[in-house]
């Protein structure tokens, strides 16, 4: 009995994110009531499902795909054709709430077909096949205009379809709640899939395909089923995308879409269930907001991605998690100050780097580099030496302190402590 209670306690502990996150998700649109923000939130939902499905491949099975948008996009097209048929039938047929299922079915179908020859090998061969397939499907999207609607794409109307719950889906907020519901369903299913024999063996095949063979599993079939399920969820995300956007065109199957999901998933952290959730939300948000504030957003994006790959391959969630474990294990004891110092000096360095980049963009891209412009609240002139000197100085001092002073300090402190502990 005692163990049972303990287990129950653990379950309750593990359950709280599943309650808190949806609660926040439902409250959010009442806090930010602009249509654009709600749309952005809906897009995050779609991106989250897509990224979670992607991580079923990359994180769980170790399959790096450069063409996952194929399943997202084909799911979206099939769902869109269905929506248009519903529109044409005067708003009768499948209820709009179930439309994503059509996308999921399409994703599943194409996953079955394309997966059959993609997953025979993992690693680089798989990556290259998905790259080639992605290009092929994207190219054919402009050739087969009957199905793909050419480069103009296809339109449909979500409010001209029957609703299961009698909701009017014209306002973005109602759509948002539908997205939250589907995101939650998909997230729970994907989470549960990780707990099944297939989910376990996917991890096993990722780590050691040979060993998996010697316990009876065919790695190709494990990859294949995992791939098909992943494609199915990608299609579901695509179907949901149709409802939020009401337009589908060739870009949903394109390379940029495939790249974005890879970026988001990796930035969040492929080793964690919530990694893709965090990453997809962040990337969707940055993509729509950063570009409104700076020309250099693609560069920032690239730099963020590279830094994650180089310094934190477990992603943002990984950073937080390791620090948390470290803190819990008492690793912060006596050196919290040093850690804070490293963090602050790192932020100073980043601040300086942003100044340098913004100065460069003004200097090289502006029609009049000499025109005064506002940098971090201060009016400066990019043709003068001073702002450059200051920015470079801040960058160098920030990163210099972090790398040459803070880090060694922390290392010394830790090793001194552990030596002391042993002695």
């Amino acid at each position, binding site marked *: 009995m005692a163990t049972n209670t303990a287990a129950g306690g653990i379950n309750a502990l593990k359950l709280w994110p599943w309650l808190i996150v949806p609660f926040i998700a439902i409250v959010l649109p009442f806090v930010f009531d602009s249509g654009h923000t709600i749309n952005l939130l809906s897009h995050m939902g779609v991106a989250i499902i897509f990224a979670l499905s992607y991580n079923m491949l990359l994180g769980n099975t170790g399959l790096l795909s450069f063409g996952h948008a194929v399943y997202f996009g084909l799911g979206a097209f099939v769902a869109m054709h269905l929506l248009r048929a519903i529109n044409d039938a005067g708003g009768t047929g499948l209820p709009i709430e179930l439309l994503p299922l059509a996308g999921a079915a399409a994703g599943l179908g194409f996953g079955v077909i394309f997966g059959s020859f993609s997953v025979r090998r993992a690693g680089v061969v798989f990556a*290259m096949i998905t*790259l080639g397939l992605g290009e092929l499907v994207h190219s054919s999207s402009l050739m087969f205009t009957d199905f793909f609607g050419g480069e103009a794409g296809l339109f449909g109307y979500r409010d001209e379809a029957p609703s299961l719950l009698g909701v009017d889906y014209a306002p973005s907020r109602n759509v948002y709640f539908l997205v939250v519901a589907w995101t939650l369903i998909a997230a729970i299913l994907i989470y549960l899939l990780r707990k099944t024999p297939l989910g376990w063996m996917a991890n096993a095949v990722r780590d050691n395909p040979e060993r998996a063979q010697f316990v009876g599993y065919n790695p190709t079939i494990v990859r294949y089923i995992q791939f098909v399920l992943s494609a199915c969820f990608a299609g579901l995300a695509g179907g949901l995308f149709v409802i939020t956007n009401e337009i589908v065109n060739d870009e949903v199957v394109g390379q940029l879409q495939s790249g974005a999901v890879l970026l988001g998933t990796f930035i969040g952290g492929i080793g964690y269930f919530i990694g893709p959730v965090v990453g997809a939300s962040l990337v969707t948000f940055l993509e729509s907001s950063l570009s409104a504030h700076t020309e250099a957003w693609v560069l920032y994006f690239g730099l963020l991605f*590279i830094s994650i790959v180089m310094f934190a391959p477990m992603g943002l969630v990984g950073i937080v998690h390791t620090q948390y474990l470290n803190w819990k294990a008492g690793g912060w004891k006596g050196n919290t100050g040093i850690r804070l110092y490293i963090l602050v000096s790192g932020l100073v360095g980043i601040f300086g780097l942003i100044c340098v980049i913004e100065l460069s963009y003004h200097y090289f891209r502006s029609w009049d580099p000499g025109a005064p412009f506002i940098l971090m609240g201060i009016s400066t002139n990019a043709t003068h030496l001073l702002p450059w000197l200051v920015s470079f100085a801040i960058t160098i001092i920030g990163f210099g302190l972090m790398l040459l002073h803070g880090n060694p300090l922390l290392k010394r402190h830790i090793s001194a402590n552990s030596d002391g502990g042993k002695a």
Partner: protein
Amino acid sequence: MLETIAYSIFNGVLYGTLLFMMSSGLTLIFGMMGVLNFAHASFYMLGAYFAYTLGLTTGFWLALILAPIAVGAMGALVERYGLRRVHQYGHVPELLFTFGLAYVIEELVALFWGTVPVPYKAPAVMNTTAFTMFDLDYSWFKVFILLVAVVMFVGLWLLLMKTRAGQVIQAALSRPDMVGALGHNVPLVFTLVFAFGCALAGLGGVVGGIQFVTDPGMAFMMGPIVFVVVVLGGLGSVPGALVASLIIGILQTFFLSINFSLAETIGTLNIEDSGFFGVLWHMEATRIAPVLPFLLLVLTLIFRPRGIFGKREA
């Protein structure tokens, strides 16, 4: 038809040699380090831009030599301070690193040189007509491209076959795990090979930037094709890269030069130009040509993952 074939072969070879300049570097890097360098085409782009900028002061001929060296130096820096760090995490992060690097290089190029194509041109003397074939003029520059490619292939071959460094690289290509056993400084060898591969791509850029257009989009467009060449030729095989470059060059040129579709050749058979098979039936060869490399890529990987000349699978 003879005209078309002769033309396809000649122009295909020309295009193929350009592909070879880029892919030979990539195949060396992959064969040795196992890194499928997504940013390889970015180094090709840097070659073109460096040559353009250097050429403004030093003239084309000096830039032809200096630009690849500069690109090689960049490559060395990237390997030393970027890839080597990521190497410990495995091949997927390496791939992702170069994937991100490609974005960053493109942005930086657009920042420094602008989004407009730069007026990078061959010296006037090379724009004169060298010969005329079937009423089409060929400039000295095209002859020059062929020449550079031949020199490069011979140079590479000599380097790999006749020098000690080449022996080490060859050994590494067939058994990457054994290089350490040869008693060589493996990280240094890696850096040098990466730099050398990048320099080769840079050389491709110096020439390709003139033949095509030097703009920040050039890497994005060339990138996937280079992969196709490397995979088709067999990862790590330089002769394979040459053959694959030529095959793709000639095949693509041929598809573009002929007027062919199933409907025109066999007859429409009352098949309408709609629906999946209908569209395919009426599809003209010219519209398929650009997709052809990717079709080859997928088919190669399915049926012969080791490529034409490769000894081991990817």
